[in-house]
């Protein structure tokens, strides 16, 4: 089993289309265990019930945004060790700094290519294959 196949990923984005594209990109990279959530609140519930190794979350979402989710994940002993990659559609340096301070492992700008997504994940987990 490859590394990608062993990693449980949780995709969090309020846009259906973005979730589909992200899921598709991850499948192309060899990921098999993928769960999706539509906002931070839902994602946090899923994480508490069934911790995932990697959270890839959009920043701009209703109810609870990406930073709120990141804080929630980091403050719960059951989920705090999960890797967290934040996606952002806006080129906002303050957000990148904030995400880094709150413990994000990486930040990736949208629109991303599959190669960039791969590099962002490999920076956290090492080579996927």
């Amino acid at each position, binding site marked *: 089993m490859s590394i990608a196949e062993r990693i449980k990923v949780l995709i969090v984005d*309020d846009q259906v289309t973005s979730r589909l594209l992200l899921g598709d990109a991850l499948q192309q990279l060899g990921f098999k265990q993928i769960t999706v959530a539509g906002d931070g609140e839902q994602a946090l519930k899923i994480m508490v019930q069934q911790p995932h190794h990697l959270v890839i979350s959009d920043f701009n979402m209703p109810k609870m945004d990406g930073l709120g989710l990141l804080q929630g994940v980091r403050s719960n002993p059951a989920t705090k060790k999960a890797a967290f990659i934040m996606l952002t*559609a806006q080129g906002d340096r303050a957000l990148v700094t904030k995400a880094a301070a709150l413990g994000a492992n990486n930040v990736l700008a949208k629109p991303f290519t599959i190669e960039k997504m791969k590099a962002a994940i490999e920076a956290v987990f090492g080579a996927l294959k």
Partner: protein
Amino acid sequence: MMNSAGLRRVHVIQGEFKVVSDPNVVLSTILGSCVAACLRDPVTGIGGMNHFLLPGSADASMNSGDATRYGVHLMELLINGLLKQGARRDRLEAKLFGGAKTIARFSNVGEQNTLFAKRFLLDEGITLLGESTGGEHGRKVEYWPATGKARQQALTGVETQKTVALEQRPVPVVKPPETTIEFF
């Protein structure tokens, strides 16, 4: 620009989006094979317009997945902009314009752009109230976000050719986000 009726005109160029909450603003754009999505929240009157051309066969460095992600990105920027001003996602309604069939091209880029936009709206559950897409002529479009009214004027053959030629120039992708902080 302000005219006698106190109406302010805001022009939207390719690769750009504008969101307004001022009822005295009319958004305008000129489209060849590009598509403009006009979105608004009818309750708050907050609305906006984007203007895009997906990189298709003309740009070999991008595969279709990358092109779709680029398009989704431009739609997302517009929607995020609307939500930021106070629009509600579940109330958003849309009108689509553009996607004219261009001459001397193997693939119908305009149609691909229109299909992408319609698919996106369908997947996101955003109601498409009306559209004027396809055809052989470009369009000059005006959109009043406060009322949702739109008006279009067909370009002449020469104007269409000029517009399409301008659209084919490489445009810088929406400003590169700064993600230069070293994490490791």
